[in-house]
């Protein structure tokens, strides 16, 4: 019970902080002081206080999109276990639900983008759906590996699999899919090198450009939702990359938070040291992610 409460609490509260961490890291690398850690919270609250502007072109899709997205991501967050703890909801085959919830959010985000009738947002939507065609298979390859290792089809035991048996046979595949999933994470949460969250050249953006026309609370919802997405995916990656746990149960919560921050830092570092890829090369990056996971699977199965 207490676990569930903590889980939900973390899920609701922590995500924007990760964004703060990432920005701070990038600022440090840039030799700047950078915005405070909690800046994202301030932004979200500010946005919620503002009014909204709707283009006459838009229909209800435009308004519903962000709401559906956040609902979906919160549910997805309930499916993912945090650290060594079990997820509140866990049943055989929930991994597929997990993946398809992301699909649902993608459907409505892109639809809302097209609803504005602006060609910029159209471009963003087109890129979003295109890149998903590589990231999802990669994700499922990773799932195949994990399922083969743990022998179950439910996220919680599946992600705890590496925890239990981190033997040499599974090590190589795990490393491979860790790389793959990390790339997927970057792509899904629109980070450099795939996408640049804080550029203002619409043509180079994927996610940001889709929400150009949203404003006020809706935009706040979107920002919040994207941070949750980052959080959930990092939590997933966590189990593959750092499957450690301490014998003290309450320490594990601390450990989890620390690890999450660590991942945020890693992302920040990646963003700072790498340049944004040329748009036409992004597919190759994602294909490489796909291949990493595929090799992981083949390595395991042979």
């Amino acid at each position, binding site marked *: 019970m207490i676990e569930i409460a903590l889980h939900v609490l973390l899920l609701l509260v922590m995500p924007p902080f990760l964004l703060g961490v990432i920005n701070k890291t990038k600022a440090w690398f840039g030799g700047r002081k950078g915005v405070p850690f909690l800046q994202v919270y301030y932004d979200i609250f500010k946005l919620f206080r503002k009014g909204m502007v709707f283009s006459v072109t838009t229909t209800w899709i435009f308004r519903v999109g962000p709401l559906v997205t956040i609902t979906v991501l919160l549910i997805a967050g309930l499916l993912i276990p945090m650290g060594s703890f079990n997820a509140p909801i866990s049943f055989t085959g929930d991994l597929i639900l997990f993946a398809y919830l992301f699909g649902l959010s993608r459907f409505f985000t892109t639809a809302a983008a097209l609803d504005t009738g602006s060609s910029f947002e159209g471009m963003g939507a087109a890129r979003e*759906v295109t890149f998903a065609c590589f990231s999802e298979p990669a994700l499922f390859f990773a799932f195949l590996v994990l399922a083969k290792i743990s022998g179950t089809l439910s996220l919680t035991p599946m992600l705890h699999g590496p925890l239990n048996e981190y033997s040499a046979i599974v090590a190589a595949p795990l490393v491979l899919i860790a790389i793959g999933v990390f790339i997927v994470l970057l792509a899904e949460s629109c980070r450099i090198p795939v996408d640049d969250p804080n550029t203002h050249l619409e043509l180079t953006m994927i996610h940001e450009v889709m929400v150009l026309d949203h404003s006020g609370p809706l935009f706040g919802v979107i920002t919040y939702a994207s941070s949750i997405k980052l959080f959930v995916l990092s939590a997933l990656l966590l189990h593959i990359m750092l499957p450690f746990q301490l014998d003290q149960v309450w320490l594990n919560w601390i450990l989890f938070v620390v690890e999450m921050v660590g991942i945020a830092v890693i992302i920040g570092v990646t963003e700072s040291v790498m340049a944004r890829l040329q748009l036409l090369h992004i597919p190759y990056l994602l294909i490489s992610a796909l291949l990493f996971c595929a090799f992981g699977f083949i390595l395991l199965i042979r």
Partner: protein
Amino acid sequence: MLSIFLVFGAIFLFCISGLQAYLFSPQSQTGQKITVVLMMLGAFAGISGVALVIASPDAVSMNIPWTLPWSRFSVKIDHLGCVFLLPVFIVPALGSIYAIGYWNQKLHPENGQRLGAFFGLLAGSMALLVIAHDSVLFMIAWEVMAISAFFAATVEDDSLQVRHAGLVYLIATHIGTMFLLAMFALWRYTTGSFELNPMQSDSSAVAGTLFILAVIGFGFKAGLMPLHVWLPGAHANAPSHVSAVMSAVMLKMGIYGIVRMTSLFPSVELWWGGMLVIIGAVTGIAGIAFAIGQQDIKRILAYSSIENIGIILLGLGCALVGKYYGSVSIMAIALGGTLLHVWNHSIFKSLLFMNAGAVIHAVHSRDIEMMGGLGKRMPLTMLLFVTGAVAICALPPLNGFISEWLIYIGFFQTLDVGNTRSFTAIPLGVVALAAIGPLAIACFVKMLGTVFLGNERSSGSGHAHDPSLSMLIPMSALVALCLFIGLFPIIPLNIIRNAVFVWIGQSALELPLSMTISLGWISWISAALLLSAAGLLLLFKNKLWRKTDKKIETWSCGYSAPTRKMQYSGSSFGDSIVKLLRFMLQPSDHEPKNSLYFPKKSSFKTGVPDTVLDKLVLPVFHLAGHYFPMVRVFQRGHIHMYVLYILIIVLVLFVLGR
């Protein structure tokens, strides 16, 4: 026995439903109204008959002598048949209601009656096909179905396009029929009778041949990827409710054939399942990829039907693998998913085709690049479309997700059984499904965005409006079904379970318990999803729909005078994917050539023709049509030659006789 008579009554009512319209004048709508009544009665009778069978533990059958050589008039309704019978009864009935608004007899006096007659005949023959338990009866029903579909699809035969599509369909279906004739002849040679009873002797060589013949013969109808050539054209050019029935029910008859035949073999080979998985993966991915490239609203749907057939085949292949390894749970889950997907596809695909029909009805064009902004003029239609699109993209909380979920589970389970090397390939079906998913989302977001969202691109959509009630009612019914199956998956799966065990050939045992638990979770989560989204909506309602007096344009990044021509077109939306899959799709781009300084007026046109049809089949046929007639030099009208032929053949025969 009663159930059989009910089903026969349904078949009879379906068959005569359209014919009686010829008693009335072409201008009067009375016939069409009676047609609807008859169809509804037939559907009612049929469904109640099926319900009786479902309620009863075992199948009902009737077997009376028939004077056709070696064949008996033998029908059998088992649970497997019931699964395929239900769409046959439901969809055409709804289609006939839809036709009142869509193909009103008053507005189409020249071909309305023909359409109605063959529409009913199509439905009736399909029902007969499913219950047929004798190859000859099966073939008769099969061919009546194929031919009445041809006539129903080509009612507008004054347009060349329709004629061409019809011809391609007719040829394709006939080639398929030839394979089926060979298969049943071989079947009789092996089993000694035309009856479709499970094969006793296990002669694997013949079994393999039979299986391949079945896959090809039925595949032509189901639209497996290399054999799909007839499908897009026929679906695009048929009246929408006919396309709905063709895509939602008729394709499934091909699937039914494969499922039925595979259920008759005592043992299966591993390569059967493997072959189906590969074909399914190719069909699914290529089908949806082609769909993304289309600009014809109905061609998109047709290709997406191909994709769904691919998914169904993936599931069936997985089930066959399970059969090879004797794992009941894999068989149960995968085949359950397959059959449920058969239902789901017939629900949301007919919904989408009817929806497309409503759009075409409104804007008088099939080209989605001519549409746009319809959402504001026909909001109900858009709502229905969004539901159908979410369902067909297999997204929770609707029905499509359930069936694909089951197939996923089936494939995941193949990870554990049998660690033979030949086996490692099978779980990759998961990846195939995972690749199909996002592509489907891309395809239907493109469709939604281009047709309903943004601003209208042509003046044609100016006076568009929601269709009449007679068209909305069937669609809403289908949407309700989507929601129902999505939220309460256990109920349909309990019906399907028995069908699965007919296929497995074992007495009814439960689905694995974990499945039911998971399904319970899924339905809870789906409900929660809907409720919370709705709750948020209510929360923000007055902020979101606040009346504003000033009209605000979309922000176009500082560009001052945006026009609706500047919207992102459907083809440019799909372009990034089409470009990536160029090797398969072979898009045809007509680049504008613009001179350097004073560019002249130039145009850009792009499209994705059907690679197999346009690059392979038609050229071959044209070559044949060009070279075969060359034999005519032997018949130039000179009687001496003719007499000489007689002399020559006498000598030839004497030589052969030696």
